[in-house]
């Protein structure tokens, strides 16, 4: 989920659904995906995720770049698992034994993680963060966490801009990120300054809220009722997930 509007121009058919339906659908999908037992089932889940992604009309390039963050984490796993898992070797490269179980484990993890991430992206990427927060609130997320999320949505872009302005101001005075003590000290000052400014901003926001009579209770808006489209989508999703589970257990 991005807090920027970069990927929100697409006309996803999921936009017609209630945000709560999309959240619950994403949860259901991820639950079913991680409960796949066979490689075939996991592969089928990935195909399903890809189909959902196609349906959502997201920019594939941008989604791919976003996925790279996830793949980065998995590289280490991919290299280590086949080398360290016990059991018979599939083949050897010089002194290294590549374990058969390790290979299938690694493959299984790649399929599962990608299927889960892609289906979540397909369902939630285009969801406006504010609507996501409201949906979470009406699904019973504690009010305190919802407020934290609201403040994060409201102020992260300001904080980012403040950081960028500071970096630009540094560059305007000839700063270049070279590898020397001065560089690290400057980055330290930058982070420190951002922290100080955030605290000051938080204090001013708090004062502004008190000036408008805030006394601890946060008003939240009531949510809209679900529609027939939500019911239809839920039915389709349920059928597909049931088929997927059956296929997995038979494979």
């Amino acid at each position, binding site marked *: 989920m991005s807090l920027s*509007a970069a990927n929100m121009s697409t006309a996803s058919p999921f936009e017609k659904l209630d945000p709560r339906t999309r959240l619950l659908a994403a949860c259901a999908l991820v639950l079913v995906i991680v409960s796949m037992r066979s490689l075939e089932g996991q592969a089928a889940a990935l195909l399903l995720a890809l189909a959902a992604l196609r349906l959502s009309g997201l920019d594939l390039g941008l989604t791919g770049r976003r996925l790279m963050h996830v793949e980065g984490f998995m590289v280490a796993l991919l290299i280590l698992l086949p080398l360290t898992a016990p059991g018979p070797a599939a083949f050897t490269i010089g002194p290294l034994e590549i374990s058969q179980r390790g290979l299938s484990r690694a493959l299984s993890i790649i399929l599962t993680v990608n299927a889960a991430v892609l289906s979540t992206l397909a369902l939630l990427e285009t969801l*406006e963060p*504010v609507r996501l*927060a*409201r949906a979470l609130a009406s699904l019973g997320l504690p009010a305190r966490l919802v407020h934290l999320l*609201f*403040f994060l*949505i*409201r*102020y992260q*872009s*300001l904080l980012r801009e403040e950081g960028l302005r500071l970096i630009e101001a540094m560059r305007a005075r000839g700063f270049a990120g070279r590898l020397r003590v001065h560089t690290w000290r400057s980055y330290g000052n930058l982070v420190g300054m951002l922290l100080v400014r955030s605290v000051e*901003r938080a204090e*001013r*926001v708090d*004062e*502004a*809220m*008190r*000036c*408008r*009579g*805030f*006394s601890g*209770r946060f*008003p939240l*808006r*009531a949510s809209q009722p679900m529609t027939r489209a939500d019911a239809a989508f839920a039915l389709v999703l349920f059928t597909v997930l049931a088929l997927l589970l059956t296929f997995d257990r038979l494979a």
Partner: protein
Amino acid sequence: MSATEGAAFIELENVYVERAGVRVLDNVSLTLRAGDRLAVVGANGAGKTTLLRTITGLQKATSGTVRAFGRVRRTQEDFREVRIRAAYLFQDADDQLFCPTVLEDVAFGPLNMGLNEQAALEKANATLAFLGMEHLGERITRRLSGGEKRLVCLAGVLAMEPDVLLLDEPTNSLDAKHVEKLMTVLSSLDKSMIIVSHDRPILDRLATRAVRMKDCRLEPAVLHRHPHVHEHLHVHVGEDHA
């Protein structure tokens, strides 16, 4: 200083404020009556913002009396009522706009005053309509332009129907179009005001009297309204000057 009629909304008497051992207000006395529009001018750091913060109790007076709406105010509880009746428009609109959407932000004050959701939203809509901004209601606050943000902030404080407006550099960083709009709205309002600003033309248009903050002290200042003969340096864009 002329205005003597009308009830005193706000009275400071020999107020001192010290912050971290440094004096920021030095023996300040001031009276704001119904109908007053008081301009506060002065250099940066002279204590103008501190003056507004002291009136609303965000800054505690070290000594002296803050009297507002007929009562002496000391505790945070005392100041709660003051903050609703003397609404403070902050210098930085981003500090004030914290709700996701414009409508929710404008409804925030009325909800805190005890209105139910329906009534608060109606009040918010009516206030936005009064400012000619009803079309902004569903917009996400952080995506507004600077000028829109300032006007939505104003809607947020007007929705509480205050008697007094405390305006801290209201025209700061606004473009000419939004300055004009803000000025039109402010001069049409039948409310007492304290206006902190560097913008002399704005103060000349809006204020009924003026004080100057200098070295943390308040001294009388004169507003003058007479035709000027100026020498101007103009920037013209897109016009052909042969």
